[in-house]
């Protein structure tokens, strides 16, 4: 096929979108909804993974000392902990420093009561372990040190987050799969209607000896263009929706969110790519069956 022939086929495909504009708009609409939902699901999943990675990636365990441990004593205890096997680093966190973490989340008058004498927090030591596989044994040894009250188990949080991640990923997967199927179905229906509207032309093309590929290209172009339009529109909408969606997610579970600009390019490419692939798949699905028909059968006469 020569280039001008291809140009003609591309033009035919795009013209057809305009000819069937009501149906095209409807499919673009449905496709945008599907892409937005799958996009939101993927982004949520991405954010959860990111949060889990961040938390799981730190192997710092906070060791709380007894309430009655004084500042000087605390330093000795830190030294004792440092000597324990598998402990590579320790960092003393005084109760005054620890309380500061709560400054933002508390009302000023309440916070003011909590500094100094009224501080309910114990001193603590942040312990960095070399090998997390030896976590249990190391914690056991730390607990043996005089003056150590408790150890905050970060693994538990990590585990909870990991299971949350699994849940989110599984849900996202099914949402994406279901909506992709819906989208393919919608596109294939649109293309089927176009083909029906143009069955007469198709029958003439076939009778003069047009190849299946030649008949097929305008419809695939149509499907892919509908997909691309949907993908581009979704990319633009997502910029505005991301903050809104993630804020509402954050109100349920607070964790650090990915900045949209970090993922914008990737997400936009994914939307357009997914749209185009879904469009192509949807059209091919309806064309295949149609092309096998001949003559009057094709025309429905």
């Amino acid at each position, binding site marked *: *096929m*020569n280039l001008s*022939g291809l140009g*003609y086929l591309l033009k035919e495909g795009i013209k057809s979108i305009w000819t069937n504009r009501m149906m095209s708009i409807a499919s673009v609409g449905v496709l945008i909804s599907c892409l937005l939902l799958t996009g939101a699901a993927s982004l949520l999943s991405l954010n959860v993974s990111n949060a889990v990675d961040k938390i799981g990636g730190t192997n710092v365990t906070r060791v709380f000392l007894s309430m009655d441990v004084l500042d000087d004593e605390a330093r000795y205890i830190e030294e004792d902990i440092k000597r324990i096997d598998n402990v590579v680093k320790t960092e003393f966190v005084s109760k005054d420093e620890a309380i500061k973490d709560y400054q933002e989340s508390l009302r000023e008058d309440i916070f003011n009561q909590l500094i100094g004498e009224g501080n309910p927090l114990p001193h603590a030591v942040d312990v960095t372990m070399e090998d997390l596989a030896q976590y249990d044994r190391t914690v056991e040894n730390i607990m043996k040190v005089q003056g150590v009250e408790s150890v905050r188990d970060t693994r538990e949080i990590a585990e909870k987050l990991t299971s949350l991640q699994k849940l989110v990923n599984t849900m996202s997967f099914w949402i994406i799969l279901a909506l992709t199927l819906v989208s393919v179905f919608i596109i294939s229906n649109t293309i089927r209607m176009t083909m029906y509207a143009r069955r*007469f032309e198709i029958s*003439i093309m076939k009778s*003069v*000896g047009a190849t299946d590929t*030649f008949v097929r290209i305008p419809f695939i172009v149509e499907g892919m263009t509908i997909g691309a339009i949907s993908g581009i529109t979704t990319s633009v909408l997502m910029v505005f929706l991301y903050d809104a969606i993630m804020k509402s997610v954050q109100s349920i579970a607070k964790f650090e969110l990915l900045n949209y600009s970090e993922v914008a390019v990737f997400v936009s490419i994914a939307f357009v790519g997914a749209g185009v692939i879904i469009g192509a798949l949807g059209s091919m699905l309806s064309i295949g069956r149609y092309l096998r028909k001949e003559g009057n059968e094709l025309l429905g006469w």
Partner: protein
Amino acid sequence: MIEFRNVSKVYHTGTHALNQVSLIIEKGEFVFIVGSSGAGKSTFLKLIMREETPTSGSIIVNDIQLEKLKRRKVPMLRRSMGIVFQDFRLIDKMTVYENVAFAMRAVGARPRAIKKRVPYILELVGLENKAENYPSELSGGEQQRVALARALVNNPQMIIADEPTGNVDPEMSYEIIELLHEINKRGTTVLIVTHEHNLVHSFNSRCITIDKGVVVEDAMEIKPSEGGQV
């Protein structure tokens, strides 16, 4: 060019459309296929176009055995034949020119070739002045000539006309057959399927008569010496 060897066609509905048909049509011939409706004419055409395959027997067109032809090779077979339908099958929203050009585009012809070839063909069928008209603005005979132009434009080795006179008045019918005759003189094999015996009698041509799926007569029609009435 076209050979049928003991061809039978039974549709899945149980209809025996053709029964042990054997015939040979040579290159350059001008042949009428005559029969009343339901005689098997349409099946005959569908088999040649490879819209259907025979239940038994063998069909050879241009040295290709059709029942063995792969589906993706069918377009190439169809490019060797120009089909003229009884109901014209013109695209309403396209002009005469575009309708003819469409057939060239469908086989991937270059725009330059289309620009050159379409006016030539329109002139050949006498429609050079109607190029920018729409089919709805033309008479039945003119529409049939557009259909013929479309069939001719890709320069096929044979023209197959299915009831070309079915939807035009008798005078026009004669003209259309004359035109087909002209085309035949240029070396194109012409096959005309019709139920109008009168029309056949006006031409000195081979006439294959089909009845109830069987070839009942295959002979040269001798044109009456005087006043070939239609």
